[in-house]
């Protein structure tokens, strides 16, 4: 019984509590900051840079199926996607399709 429940306790403490405390603190902080203030600009910049760091890590240090792929292929795929994205007036779907397509083609050629 205790053994069956343990993974859920683990998820609640190390997963739910570990993430939601920051969301609640965000509500408290957001209630006090003016939308147009310089503080808000800083908060926006920090939030974006944090997400950007998560993205960079997913590309440069991936886990799972991508772990065995060469880094030049992953970075090259993102670069190809970026070129398509900007060449076609920030076309989001096209950028994504080109990036994923480049990766898929590269993996296929490399036989991984």
């Amino acid at each position, binding site marked *: 019984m205790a053994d069956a429940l343990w993974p859920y306790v683990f998820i609640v403490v*190390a997963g739910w509590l570990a993430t939601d405390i920051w969301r609640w603190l965000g509500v408290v902080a957001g209630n006090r900051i003016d939308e147009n203030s310089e503080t808000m600009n800083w908060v926006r910049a920090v939030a974006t840079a944090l*997400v950007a760091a998560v993205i960079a890590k997913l590309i440069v240090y991936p*886990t799972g199926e*991508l772990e065995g792929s060469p880094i030049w292929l992953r970075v090259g795929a993102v670069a190809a996607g970026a070129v398509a*994205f900007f060449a076609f007036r920030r076309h989001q779907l096209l950028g994504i399709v080109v990036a994923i397509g480049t990766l898929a083609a590269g993996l296929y050629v490399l036989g991984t």
Partner: protein
Amino acid sequence: MDAEAISEGQTKRHWFVQGMRGIWSIPAIMLMLSFVGFAAFTAEGGIPVEQVMFMTGMVWALPAKVILVGSMLSGANIVTAFIAVTLSSVRMMPMVAALVPEIRNRKTPTWLMLVLSHFVAITAWVFAMERAHKIPRDGRVAYFAGFSITLTSANIVLVGVAYFLVTQFPPLIGACLFFLTPVYFLTSIWVSARHRVIYWALGIGLVLGVVFHEIAPDFDILLAGLVGGTLAWFGERRLRLRQKGGV
């Protein structure tokens, strides 16, 4: 029809349903595909499907879940796992703090924002920051609730179904699904940015994410966010003030 003729309750219901429709938007579909990738990751690691569905509802943020699963698979103790997950989730605080003033009005109770904040993760955040300002202020909380609660619920069901299908996927498909998450987040932030400082923070954060991973891997995301965000803010502000000064 006169806007005042519609009762407040009807307005809220209207915007809630409009938000629910966001499940068919590109961001939502991209996230769902990323969750198929996540289902493959957990199925491969041998985490039972009930636990995967449970954590999808409870944790919600995909990067935090990837770290949580990594901790569970490596047999880390609960304290170590808590620290790793919580460090990856500090970003929730500025994200929620930036979102709250965008969507709430003077009458919105704080308890409601605390409950709804649970549904904030990168996709719902990008979606709301991009679209909320186009919606009348009184409908924004309902709109966000409609979108984010639908998105979370749909993905709980999705991982439960995908879990049993993905083991038959060839590795190439799995790799592409994993890669979708960062590529989709990148384009979303660029497309949804309404302030110049966002572009600066995105570029600096990408570079510093790698730099700090090499220097201080335990605190890389936190440091890249604080240092990179502050640099971006400072640089953009200097340029803005100089431009305003007409120099």
